[in-house]
């Protein structure tokens, strides 16, 4: 059994590609013969709003939702989203935080402040010793392969360190997920490798 049998939260801001990352995990689960559910809410939040994708993988998956204290992994594609969805992580779970900051309009207009030292706050607020917080500069890494759009796959690379799934299988899944845009496959494979090295 790999650790792929997990509940994984992908939190970010509209346009960061959390859903594509969710699809990739779904393909991976199917390859391993596991059950999977990927869920996200569409609606008024789509324009620059906070978006969340739930991925649950296991032998049998019932609820598509990951509730408070039930996520094995929370991947925050944007720094402050880590705080917004922190309640979902279970004691002893892994939080992977992209240090990229996307300021919302109230912050840009100076109405509220964007919190500083989020990583320190998270460490101080951890209730147990086993919870792991991993910080990664996924935007910088994505820019190394040439596009900010690859942030989601960099994050998948970082996550792959904890799932115990063969690297070759990940790459096959990436090829499948981007089959309709074959030109983007090499860049995404490279983003995955760099994310795996950095996570």
């Amino acid at each position, binding site marked *: 059994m790999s650790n792929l049998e997990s509940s994984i939260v992908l939190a970010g*801001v509209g346009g960061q590609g959390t859903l594509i990352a*969710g*699809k990739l995990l*779904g393909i991976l689960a*199917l390859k391993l013969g596991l*059950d*999977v*559910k*990927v*869920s*996200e*809410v*569409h*609606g*008024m939040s*789509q*324009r*620059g*709003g906070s978006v969340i994708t739930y991925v649950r993988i296991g032998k049998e*998956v*019932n*609820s*598509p*939702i990951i*509730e*408070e*204290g*039930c996520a094995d992994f929370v991947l925050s594609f944007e720094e*402050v*989203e880590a*705080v*917004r969805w*922190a*309640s979902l*992580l*279970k*004691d*002893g*779970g892994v*939080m992977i935080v992209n240090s990229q900051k996307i*300021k*919302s*309009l*109230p*912050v*840009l*207009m*100076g109405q*509220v*402040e964007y*919190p500083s030292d*989020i990583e320190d*706050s*998270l460490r*101080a*607020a*951890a*209730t*147990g010793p086993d*919870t792991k917080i991993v910080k990664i500069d996924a935007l910088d890494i994505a820019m190394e392969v040439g596009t900010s759009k690859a942030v989601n796959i960099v994050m998948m690379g970082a996550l792959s360190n904890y799932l115990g799934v063969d690297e070759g299988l990940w790459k096959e899944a990436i090829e499948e997920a981007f089959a309709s845009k074959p030109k983007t496959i090499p860049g995404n494979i490279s983003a995955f490798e760099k994310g795996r090295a950095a996570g």
Partner: protein
Amino acid sequence: MKEIMLGNEAVARGAYEAGVKFVSSYPGTPSTEITETIAKYQEVACEWAPNEKVGAESAIGCSIRGGRAMTCMKHVGMNVCADPLFTVSYSGVNGGLVFCVADDPGMHSSQNEQDSRHYARASKVPMFEPSDSDECRRFTKYAFEFSEKYDTPVIIRLHTRVSHSRSVTETEDPKAQEIRSYEKDPKKYVMMPANAIGKHVVVENRTKTIIADCDADPEGTGLHRIEMRDTKLGIITAGAAYQYVRDGAPDASVLKLGMVWPLPEKTIRDFASKVDRLVVVEELDPFLETEIKAMGIECEGKELFTLLGEYSTRMVRAALTDLPLPKKAFDLSALPTPPGRPPVLCAGCPHKGLFLALKRLKVNVTGDIGCYTLGALPPMQAVDAVICMGASVGMAHGFDKATDGADSRNTVGVIGDSTFLHSGITNLMNAVYNQSSMTLVILDNSITGMTGHQQNPSTGKNIRLEAAPQVSLEKLCESVGVLPEAVRVVDPVDTYETEKVIKEELARETVSVVIARRPCALIPTGRAVKGINVEVDFEKCKKCGACGRIMCPALVMGEDKTPVIDTESCNNCGLCVNMCKFGALRKGGEA
């Protein structure tokens, strides 16, 4: 073959596998992707109808003629097509007929939280309720067969969590589309009293037959499922709630209902007799609970659970088990408050300039359903009332009548192009006919925006993006009696000119229509050329902050109070340019 499919995609797949001939729908979250997916199956006749009633009636026509047909909608759309639903229940079908309705517990993107199951009981139409994508496919496919077998329409009820979750789905080869023969049969299809009296008897007998067949073999059709585990606790549930029950109370016995109306009474009675304690777990109203109690079966339900919002595994676990609740990784009180990301009108959104004009005019605004509902939020806060599709027009007329015309001097109705064609036009006809002096603003952004850019009769394209005849909003308004000189067209980015024109039309003592026309900034015709943005002349800038007040996501205030343009998201619409009295902003690409 196994695929991961969205619940909505799986409904479309099921209809396709059943050989559906025709699908006609109006978009509405969370149901929209069903019809969008159908459009990819080229052999299916597929269309966006101007509203749900039209969609339903078109599907009914196809069914009577012998083709399998479906219409899809969000929960409030079922209100719009309730009229044909109740009577096609009497006439029955020829080709299988399916109504697909998506409820939105938790109101992720809706104006109310209605429970559409009441429609099944009220219209006496059987309702199926799938819990995941594979059931979406199987139930929809079976619904067409069931419809023809029992001569009844079938409603498929979805929830946001079922519509918008992806799960593993089998696929099967599609059946060929088969058009059944058509013969004139007025006793069946002409629902006037003499015929309908007889058909009501047929309907009541049909319900009894369905119940008896279900009870004879409850699991045989693949709809209901009896899962016996520990008999100390038995749970009756359906739809999305089933998933929370399985995770929350994994040891409980479960009667999972795949058809939530009519109910298999004997099956429920048998299940109840096998468990010590019977609990009904259902989101929203106590629909199953009320029916089960009316059978004289003792059960618990809403005394343990809420009428509001979505359920969860945690809720089920806390109410029905001693199992421990999960432990969180963080002490949340020790974390900072994350800044909100409220929904905002996009950079280049044409609605912004209009709402700024309305805010300056300090008028009452009766609003409608669409992206422009956001005009009720800061910084505009210009919208006074939003009820349902098309209501902006009627409400403005009502303001007129309440004040013998006086309030029409400071009240406007605001409605989008798609919503106007959905159900605003009948209201406008009424306002003209009954001599209102109201002013209506049609926000014509050339698309149905909020639901994710669907075409409509005024866009010149059909659901497959092929060229289609185009309604002229100006001529349409004139045709219901609005004076030609009282139909004005403005560009809302020119916010001051828009204000001037609306002011003139408010003064007019007949119905007037101002069409604020500019394509949505997210569609090809509304997008600016990449790399051409608004530019700032810092020498002219007086740091007055006027441009910042429009709260454009592409324009932020720098620390020295001069504007900073985000060249990635700026659409070069020029609204900020129009706000600047000092000429410090300039549209890109212009001298």
